[in-house]
């Protein structure tokens, strides 16, 4: 058991940190970038591709780097530190992750190569106005006509959905929920993009008999394999990546708050002379370090091949609670300036709030954990089901 990064991982962290610090170390620059479509900087996206970041979790045979969840966590944390708006988790971890998990060898090469090279942005069109963090599709249906499939229905909100070159779409078939690939210029595809409160972009994506290709080849021609478990697993890996992104964001929010407390003066003294404030900052630190532990651990569980769905729920719960605590206190300890868009700290709260609602909030994770709380007397983070093969009784 070891919580230290190795030297290659440290190098990756420093490289990504350097790149993103140069791009967004100045919060004003991030505001400028996020005001204009597509909501992120195409040049930074290209540099991330050059660095190998966009192909990190994919097999080398598919055009990727052959790295894993630890490296993804490292990148995600650095993204969180400066609130880099590039859709790394959305395009690489989630949409790309689904292609890697479900796609045929041909599809993987066709889609993941360009994604890794930065020439194609992927997005996962899954959320629907009438569903709430479910892994199954309900409102978009797939119809088979001869050898071809078409999709009909509405997906919203789809993160990075307007900018994406290729959409991975979940849809209802006779076999359950299947996954499809839809090109950005397909007929019958209407995309209406908009800004989200955290500076990101989402879209309403409407399908009207839109041509689509089935992702993967499981099941029968009329009843393709149900991909709900694959989506659940991809969600888990994305939740873990978001947990690490949240840790990076919380870290900066706390650091910014501490700096503010030592410089801002009221009643003739700096704010850190008020114990009512410093104790609250100390509690923020406690929340941050506990969340960091679980986020790192969940990344290790994913890396070791343990029960990633349960580990992701645990990380989700911990970072949800911590994100709200730290985000809210960061604003309160700053005072009015924390609510402005002109000062950076409030943007961290906004981003943490967005992360909290993309793939399930803390109560959602808690409900799932509570449903199985009676199945085990204790939780052993180094044993079954989290560390496969560990221990004689695992």
């Amino acid at each position, binding site marked *: 058991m070891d919580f230290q990064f190795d030297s290659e991982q440290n190098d990756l962290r420093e490289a990504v940190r350097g790149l993103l610090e140069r791009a967004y170390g100045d919060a004003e620059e991030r505001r400028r970038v996020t005001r204009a479509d597509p909501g992120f900087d195409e040049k930074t996206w290209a540099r991330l591709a050059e660095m190998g970041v966009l192909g990190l979790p994919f097999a080398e045979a598919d055009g990727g780097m052959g790295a894993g969840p630890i490296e993804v966590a490292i990148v995600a944390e650095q993204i969180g530190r400066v609130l880099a708006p590039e859709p790394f988790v959305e395009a690489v971890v989630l949409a790309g992750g689904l292609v890697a998990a479900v796609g045929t060898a041909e599809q993987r090469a066709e889609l993941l190569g360009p994604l890794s090279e930065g020439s194609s942005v992927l997005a996962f069109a899954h959320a629907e106005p009438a569903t709430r963090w479910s892994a199954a599709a309900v409102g978009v249906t797939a119809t088979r006509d001869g050898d071809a499939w078409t999709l009909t229905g509405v997906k919203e909100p789809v993160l990075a959905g307007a900018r994406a070159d290729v959409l991975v779409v979940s849809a209802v078939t006779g076999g359950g929920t299947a996954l499809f690939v839809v090109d950005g210029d397909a007929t019958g595809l209407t995309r209406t993009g908009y800004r989200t409160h955290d500076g990101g972009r989402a879209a309403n994506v409407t399908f009207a008999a839109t041509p689509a290709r089935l992702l993967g080849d499981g099941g029968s021609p009329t009843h393709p394999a149900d991909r709900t478990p694959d989506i659940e697993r991809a969600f888990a890996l994305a939740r873990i990546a978001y947990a690490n992104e949240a840790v990076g964001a919380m870290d900066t929010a706390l650091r910014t708050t*501490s700096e503010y407390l030592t410089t801002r003066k009221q009643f003739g003294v700096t704010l850190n002379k008020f114990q009512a404030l410093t104790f609250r900052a100390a509690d923020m*630190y406690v929340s941050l370090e506990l969340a960091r532990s679980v986020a790192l651990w969940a990344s290790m569980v994913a890396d070791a091949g343990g029960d990633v769905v349960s580990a992701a729920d645990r990380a989700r719960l*911990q970072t949800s609670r911590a994100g709200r605590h730290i985000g809210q206190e960061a604003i309160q300890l700053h005072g009015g300036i924390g609510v402005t868009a002109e000062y950076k700290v409030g943007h961290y709260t906004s981003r943490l709030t967005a992360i909290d609602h993309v793939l399930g909030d803390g109560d959602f994770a*808690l*409900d799932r954990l509570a449903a199985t709380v009676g199945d085990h007397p*204790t939780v052993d983070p180094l044993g079954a089901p989290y560390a496969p093969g560990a221990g004689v009784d695992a």
Partner: protein
Amino acid sequence: MRLQLSPELEAFREEMRTFFTTQVPQEIRDTVAARRHLGKDDYVRAQRALNAAGLAVPHWPVEWGGKDWTPLQRHIWREEMQLACVPEPLAFNTSMIGPVLAQFGNQEQKERYLAKTANLDIWWCQGFSEPDAGSDLASLRTTAVRDGDDWIVNGQKTWTTLGQYADWIFCLCRTDPTAEKKQRGISLLLFPMDTPGVTLRPIELLDGGFEVNEVFFEDVRVPAENLVGEENQGWTIAKFLLGNERVGIARVGTTKYYLSLAKDLARQTTAGGRPLLDDPRMAGRIAEIENELLALELTALRVVANSADGRPHPASSVLKLRGSELQQAATELLVDIAGPLSLASFADGGSEVPDWARVATPEYLNYRKVSIYGGSNEVQRTIIAGTILGL
């Protein structure tokens, strides 16, 4: 980054688990599992069973019975001990005065005390807090005045845990009342509790038990050779001792056991025609505490796994703070599971209320102490704000 324990550490964990669950008297473990107070003899028997196997003082220098384990091995040792409901070796002996003597004592003191301290042949108690010196320990007023070859001690200590069983006390005394800083005029003295002039008054706690005491000193004559370290070096020693006191204070293993107990009891308890564990609010509450406990355990593992270079990990200050809060959350949970049965707290014979429900509230009330002792949680917040956040 690696999740699994190495095969060697897995074997080590198994070895610890086997020892603690088979080699410590079962009736003592049952008493701990039932959350009943142990008697002096129970502590002594348990510690001697550990010491006979070399497992009472693994963190001491090898020369005096230590094991030269890594911080992670010590962590595993402690966790397995708590999970098996084995009473931990007496902290006053093994975590406090033992390491102090090994570090600051002279050769004669080491030879005279250390082996007996490890085996609980001497039971030590802690003479630190005073009525006007709690979190502000350096304000202590008990004096020791040199008189020929002796020190004459006068004053009062309080919160002296299990002092009623103690053979000896290690006692912070003011030896230089004129020192410029109050921290500079303090020394550490050792003396037997049956020395003339020492009297002890037990303090009854809310749980009906007698765990702490006041200790009064009236012209207590202590031989000069019983000074530990240098005269007026007591504050340095006290800080060293309190640093050790916080090691292992997260008590993850104990809280884990309490949560597993809470699940069993909530399953056996019927509310509204179904097991209480099936109530979504109760299940959610347990699951939330369980996740917090996981976060704490992982933080403790991060601290021990990455503190090999001897410097304390910054996150270590989180352990006492959240560890105590979770112990309190678990004991509160057990009271709420007991519900109205918790009122039968002092029932003796003739009550149909099960034992676990009777001990729940006394223990809950007793456990309010854990966020107060060992550096109160407010002291921990001051440390975090000051030394980590620079506030």
